[in-house]
């Protein structure tokens, strides 16, 4: 068991292409990752998603099969479930997932579960995304 650990991850769309997975950085990360594998027996509470920049659709993805031999720069899984889709309104500076502050909860009973952010927008547009993730014991 462990105490909660709240981490803010940051990413941006590429400014090229029309869709992709957002590489995530953070103050605690030494290198960017394309997904967040949740430690076994823990859950990820997604408390907030903040977006700015150009309009985009950002999808929070989930997979139960973060593969073996994962690295920080590969995406060795196929998205299986889209938990939430956030249609960004560029007039808003901040967008929280729930005004009542109820988090999106993703459980990891096997340690293989992971989450990631996919995006869809047009061409050269760039959207900045922050996501607040709290790691808590199941």
């Amino acid at each position, binding site marked *: 068991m*462990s105490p909660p*650990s709240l981490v803010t991850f940051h990413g941006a769309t590429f400014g090229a292409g029309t869709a992709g997975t957002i590489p995530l950085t953070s103050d*605690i*990360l030494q290198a960017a990752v394309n997904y967040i*594998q949740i430690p076994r027996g823990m859950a990820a509470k997604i408390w907030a998603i903040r977006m700015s920049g150009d309009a985009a659709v950002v999808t929070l993805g989930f997979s139960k099969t973060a593969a073996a031999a*994962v690295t*920080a720069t590969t995406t060795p899984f196929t998205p299986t479930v889209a938990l939430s889709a956030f249609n960004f309104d560029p007039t808003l500076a901040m967008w929280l997932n729930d005004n009542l502050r109820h988090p999106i909860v993703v459980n990891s009973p096997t340690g293989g579960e992971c989450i990631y952010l996919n995006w869809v927008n047009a061409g050269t547009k760039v959207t900045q995304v922050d996501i607040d993730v709290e790691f808590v014991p199941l």
Partner: protein
Amino acid sequence: MATDEKKFPNFKANDYLAVTIPATQSAMVFRVKVRVNPEQMLQYGALPLATSDPALSGMDAATVSIPAAGVMPGRAYTAIGRGYSMALTNAYDATDMWYTNEDYRDRIFYIVAKTTPSFLQLGLEFPKGVQQYRFQRDNVMAGVGTNFGFSRGAIETVQFPNIHQSLRIGNDSNLPVYTGLTYQYNELIIETPRDPLTIYNILAGRIPSYRVDLPIMVQDSSIPIQLQKDYGYTGFDMTLLSTPNDAVTEYGNILKGVII
């Protein structure tokens, strides 16, 4: 072992501390004369992970290199026998800040190591280099790098003189994380209660005390040797708790040889 959801104590004068050694079904019992340090938090900094260290063991790959100083790579763990000690300049042993010798037998350290991020797996090697976490005797080796037998984010221990301990670390997420280490510690001037009935009542739970179960599931021969050298005994037999008269008699005999 510890979880960081529990409240870790800071001891006061006249508190009792019982330190159990499961492998020998015995316990060391101390009365706190005074806690030396009024402030208990010690911000150590990053874990001493260095790029020059040998590669860590991998949970998927065979090995994983440490990418930068203080960084715990994802899906990796320190192998058995490769636990870290924390250096501190000018400490009695500058390579292991908690280590002392029998000249310091009147003081022990109650230590809680807390890491960031808190999902890191933590385990103690007690003594240094000896993996202790097992399941069903030796049927299954548990601990850091496996699916159970570790703490996450916080781990408590008691430091006796002449015994090195070390910390194993694991990261079962894919995140290469900058680490941090904070200690909550009590430097305690202690003595052994000299009344065998008091010892019995502490171990039987009739006198309030704080109990630390050391992760000693398999006795390493060096532990009783050093405890005997430090304190003149190796533990009060807890199997006697069901027979109070026998226990008090036995504890009385042990107390005749206690050094401090």
